């Protein structure tokens, strides 16, 4: 009896030991094909198709000839690749009597975008900084009005601004257009900069004040060097917005300054005559190229900046 009892105890012990040897050991296995991964990657993949489809269609169409477009479906790859539509969109497409394609508008867009982006960001960043760190009486009232401004449809503002610019003698000038872009970029940019600057440690600002730096000293020497991400966000938003702007570009400037989007509109919207879809698509891609490149190049900073500018309210 005692023997068996001992035996049982021994065998129970060895069983436990055996389990210790064969049971879970080391890193928990994580199968690559798990339901969780299938769901995540599956969804991401399907959604990616939705997002990429238009780009695919644009590019495929832009390298097809017109006969092929009329025959085939828009998703099929081109049987014969031609870059003629691109050449035409860039250099030959006519707007009225000017047959320079998009090339003329391209440089105008550059001339409009660069000063507008610089001025609007400069002003909005200083605004945001003043709001975040130098709260003076009434500042929040103005800021609230500014946020309301973000909801005012542009169309409503067109006419009053024409009058204001006329009175200021700036109507039709590039300066006037820069001012308009600065005004309409201000609400969102100021919001972003204000949020970003309030997310920076306040003690830093206090330390700089004790160190004798003034309003501009703190802005240029302390805040600016720490604000690369949010400046990247602002730049991306503004470059995209201003480059893609059609309404202000056409209403507030003279024809010699018309941006690329006006040419795009002219190429795409010529109501009469045969629609050259391939040229339209090439022109569309060409017009979108600058903001697209900006996105692809600085996408990572964009997310970082967004994190800094939007997360803290």
């Amino acid at each position: 009896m005692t023997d068996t009892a001992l035996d049982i105890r021994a065998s129970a012990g060895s069983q436990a030991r055996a389990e210790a040897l064969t049971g879970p050991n080391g890193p928990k296995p994580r199968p690559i094909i798990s339901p969780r991964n299938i769901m995540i990657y599956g969804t991401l993949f399907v959604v990616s198709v939705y997002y990429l489809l238009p780009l695919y269609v644009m590019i495929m169409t832009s390298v097809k000839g017109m006969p092929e477009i009329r025959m085939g479906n828009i998703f099929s790859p081109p049987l014969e690749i031609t870059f003629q539509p691109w050449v035409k969109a860039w250099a030959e497409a006519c707007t009225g009597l000017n047959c320079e394609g998009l090339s003329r508008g391209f440089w105008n867009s550059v001339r409009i975008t660069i000063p507008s982006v610089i001025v609007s960001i400069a002003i909005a960043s200083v605004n945001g900084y003043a709001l975040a760190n130098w709260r003076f009486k009434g500042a929040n009232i103005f800021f609230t009005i500014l946020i309301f401004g973000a909801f005012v449809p542009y169309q409503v503002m067109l006419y009053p601004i024409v009058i204001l610019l006329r009175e200021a003698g700036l109507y039709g000038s590039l300066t006037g257009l820069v001012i308009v872009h600065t005004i309409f970029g201000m609400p969102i940019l100021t919001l972003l900069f204000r949020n970003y600057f309030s997310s920076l440690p306040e003690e830093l600002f206090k330390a700089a004040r004790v160190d004798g730096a003034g309003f501009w000293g703190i802005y240029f020497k302390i805040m600016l060097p720490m604000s690369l991400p949010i400046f990247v966000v602002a730049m991306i938003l503004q470059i995209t917005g201003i480059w893609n702007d059609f309404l202000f570009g056409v209403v507030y400037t003279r024809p010699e300054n018309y941006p690329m989007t006006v040419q795009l509109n002219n190429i795409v919207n010529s109501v009469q005559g045969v629609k050259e879809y391939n040229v339209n698509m090439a022109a569309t891609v060409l017009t979108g190229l600058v903001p697209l490149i900006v996105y692809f190049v600085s996408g990572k900073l964009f997310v970082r900046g967004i994190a800094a500018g939007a997360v803290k309210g």
Partner: protein
Amino acid sequence: MTDHAITSVKVNDVSLNFGSVEVLKQLNIDVHQGEFLVLLGPSGCGKSTLLNCIAGLLDVSSGQIFINNKNVTWDEPKDRGIGMVFQSYALYPQMSVEGNLSFGLKNARLPKEEIQKRVARAAEILQIEPLLARKPMALSGGQRQRVAIGRALVRDVDVFLFDEPLSNLDAKLRSDLRVEIKRLHQRLKNTMIYVTHDQIEAMTLADRIAIMKEGIIQQLDTPHAIYNKPVNLFVAGFIGSPSMNFLEGELTNGAVDVGGTSVSVGRYGFEPGNENWSGRAVLGVRPEHVIVLNGVDTQPFSFDATIEIVEPMGADTIAWTTLGGHSFTFRADSELNLEEGQKIRLGFDPARASLFDAVSGERI
């Protein structure tokens, strides 16, 4: 402490409101030349706010602030002759250590040689010379705080303001730096105003401590006085660890009746005029003033107790018992090997205790 004649920083009737919230209520403090003043209190008591007001980082709602006999109430921080050290160090991340140290001096448009000289001196004092070229990112917490102190140092000012400078450091670094700050004060002999919620820092560093609660200074005195003669229940309970034992009872004819036990307070040093006070009172006894009696009642008051909980601290032991229905702690030598459930006789001297009015909380 020797030179009481010269006032370095004077806070005169300062109040501060945020909307309808009164954060500071008519504060008055005179800080002497070369004095180390600690502002101590629980969070939200207004101590950091007061420091920011002195620095000029916040505008006061009413009252005045004088630094070196000059009314600086409306002066910019840079013009007040102060240096400041922050809890989060607030080092400019994009500048090197040297850049951080010299930024304020450059703003003041000091000559280059002078800047170099001062930076070198500060670096020498704080032993951060090897770090001068580094960016703050590449420094440890302790090094960062040293640089932050250096930044105040180079300004060559009379008044240093510290806003919880050690709170972000771990325990060991904190005690190391605490000593260094003390040494620094001995060497420089500047006026220092130091905000903390840590009573050990306050006790070890301060010439005088101002204990604040809800925007009011409760007591402003030397660490010794604050520890031994707290002016009210709040101060008594805030200072000391473990906290003072509070025994509530009726005070009549020189004795407090605590849950049936009468404690004679005949030798207690009443505040002038309170000698014949009677009514509900609180008797405060510091755990370290309680003595374990070994058969002989050497203390004016003694009682039998049963130990309920024992907390060995290494050097000594904190033990919990009950007196007159109140929880009662005392500090004992760890050599006594106290055990839970053990019967023991304890005693203390009511003359070293504190008596408070149970209603107003004021010292009697």
